[in-house]
């Protein structure tokens, strides 16, 4: 009987497969990405390397010496204080303490301050508090401290915001009205994001992390890229990370463009070029995990997409890795075996510059 190796499904379930089956799943995941993105698949050597990573005997794996990359944590400031409802560990601690623990105990290379709602829009009414906290963090910390939030255009549509919900309009076949609403929400979002970051730059923020760009489709990306462009113009030395929500920009509007390029339907290797053009310093490629597929399939797909983005990019790529992205299973606290394997693969095979 052939030896079987432990790995996981995308939902975290433990499974056992032979080397041949694992390799076949890696190849299928790579092929899916290559087909969708019209990009090269991984070489046989790279797939073999991924197989070695997946079948390595230890519970955790790590990159080879010299291959280490910088790591940062989105919303890490509340990771300590937050409970399991928001991926935290429930230890009472201020955002300053949370950030300092990440800097001094967990070895984070950069950090970000984040609001509990973690979207730009709700920051507006509490901007003074965010400024004060940012200032205190900057006074106490050494590593670069950014401000992080999601563009989250969903908050601009009814019933949460002033613009008619394009989902409702679309279902009523009011297509041009839906597109108009998306455009208006995007323009409003640009103003909000720029205003918030102007305030935070005044108190010494090192920059901004746009987290989950495109979560609400192409309108979300339109707003983010234009906000990045405006901020770069106003703050030439500001550090800007453009992190994506998924591997594909969903076409909610369908015709929105940035600098002559249609945003809907862009894959990571195409997204990065626009992020770079807008003025981002780093780009966060993302590939969502399919919970019905194995981690071999998901890692193959994720690394293929990410590698193409790294190769197309002339700015550093810091891949988004975690719960349900980057080939890591969709679990509130993802298992360490899967996290370290996906991370090693994304660094050693895709060649990312950071995580």
């Amino acid at each position: 009987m052939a030896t079987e190796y432990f790995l996981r499904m995308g939902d975290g379930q433990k499974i056992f497969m032979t080397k041949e089956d694992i390799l076949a799943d890696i190849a299928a995941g790579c092929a899916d990405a290559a087909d969708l993105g019209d990009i090269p698949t991984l070489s046989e050597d790279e797939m073999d390397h991924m197989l070695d990573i997946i079948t390595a005997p230890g519970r955790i794996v790590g990159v080879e010496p010299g291959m280490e990359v910088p790591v940062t944590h989105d919303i890490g400031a509340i990771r300590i204080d937050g409970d399991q409802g928001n991926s935290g560990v429930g230890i009472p601690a201020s955002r300053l303490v949370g950030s300092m623990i990440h800097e001094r105990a967990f070895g984070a290379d950069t950090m970000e301050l984040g609001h509990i709602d973690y979207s730009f829009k709700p920051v507006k009414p509490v901007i003074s508090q965010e400024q004060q906290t940012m200032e205190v963090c900057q006074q106490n910390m050494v590593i670069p401290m950014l401000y992080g939030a999601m563009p989250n255009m969903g908050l601009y549509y009814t019933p949460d915001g002033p613009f008619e919900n394009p989902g409702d309009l679309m279902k009523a076949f009011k297509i041009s009205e839906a597109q108009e609403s998306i455009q208006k929400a995007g323009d409003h979002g640009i103003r909000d994001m720029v205003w918030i970051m102007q305030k935070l730059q005044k108190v010494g923020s090192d920059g901004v992390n746009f987290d989950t760009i495109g979560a609400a489709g192409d309108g979300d990306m339109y707003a983010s890229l234009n906000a990045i462009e405006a901020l770069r113009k106003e703050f030439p030395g500001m550090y800007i990370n453009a992190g994506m929500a998924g591997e594909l920009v969903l076409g909610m509007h369908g015709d929105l463009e940035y600098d002559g390029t249609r945003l809907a339907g862009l894959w990571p290797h195409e997204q990065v070029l626009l992020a770079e053009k807008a003025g981002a310093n780093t780009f966060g490629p993302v590939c969502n995990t399919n919970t019905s597929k194995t981690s071999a399939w998901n890692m193959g797909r994720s690394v293929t997409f990410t590698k193409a983005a790294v190769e197309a990019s002339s700015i550093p790529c810091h891949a988004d890795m975690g719960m349900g992205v980057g080939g890591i299973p969709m679990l509130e606290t993802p298992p360490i075996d899967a996290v370290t394997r996906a991370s090693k693969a994304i660094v050693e095979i895709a060649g990312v510059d950071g995580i």
Partner: protein
Amino acid sequence: MWFFPHGCKGGCNTANEELFKTLSDAVVSCKKDDVIAAVEKAKGKAPAVELIDNGLAAGMNEVGVLFERGKLFLPHVMMAADAMSAGVEMLQDELGSSGGASSKLGVIVNGTVEGDVHDIGKAIVSTMLQAAGFEVHDIGRDVPVQNFIDKIKETNADMVGLSALMTTTLQGQKEVIELLKENGLRDKVKVMVGGAPATDAWAKKCGADCYAENASEAVAKAKELLL
């Protein structure tokens, strides 16, 4: 929207194949005028059921594939669906005389469970289901458990779609299922769960009939369960 569940009815000779392709291409173009012109031209040259099944519906399936591949987008899906509806409408008279059956695929109540304000993914699923031919009642987000039951009764729904985007609200899907049982509706109503933290394993655990990874899969799973 209309549905014709069968394949190439009556066989597909070359002339018919061209006819069907013209209809299919017109739907993929997402232009209502093109579809109307194509139907006008095709009328009477093949049974209406075949024109719809092998032409218009085949085009709509192609639109679904292109959406999944990031080549066509939500507005296009809706435009194509609208165009197809217009085409089917033009064939209504012939459908009656040829004995062709046409009907909605089924009635689906779709909503995001209580405590969860996420709307966009669920809205895309509703749109795609509607475009595929289901009668969809999207009851929004942060929906109280009882509202699902009330809407299911009101619309005599065949299926309920439950969305949740947070691990903290996932339990709400199970609460709806439990209330379906209490109301004696569980055997009659299929349950689909979705959203970022939902998985196949969760669907089994909470007693749902299926889990859908994305909007296209939601359409496929709904067809699987209801047809």
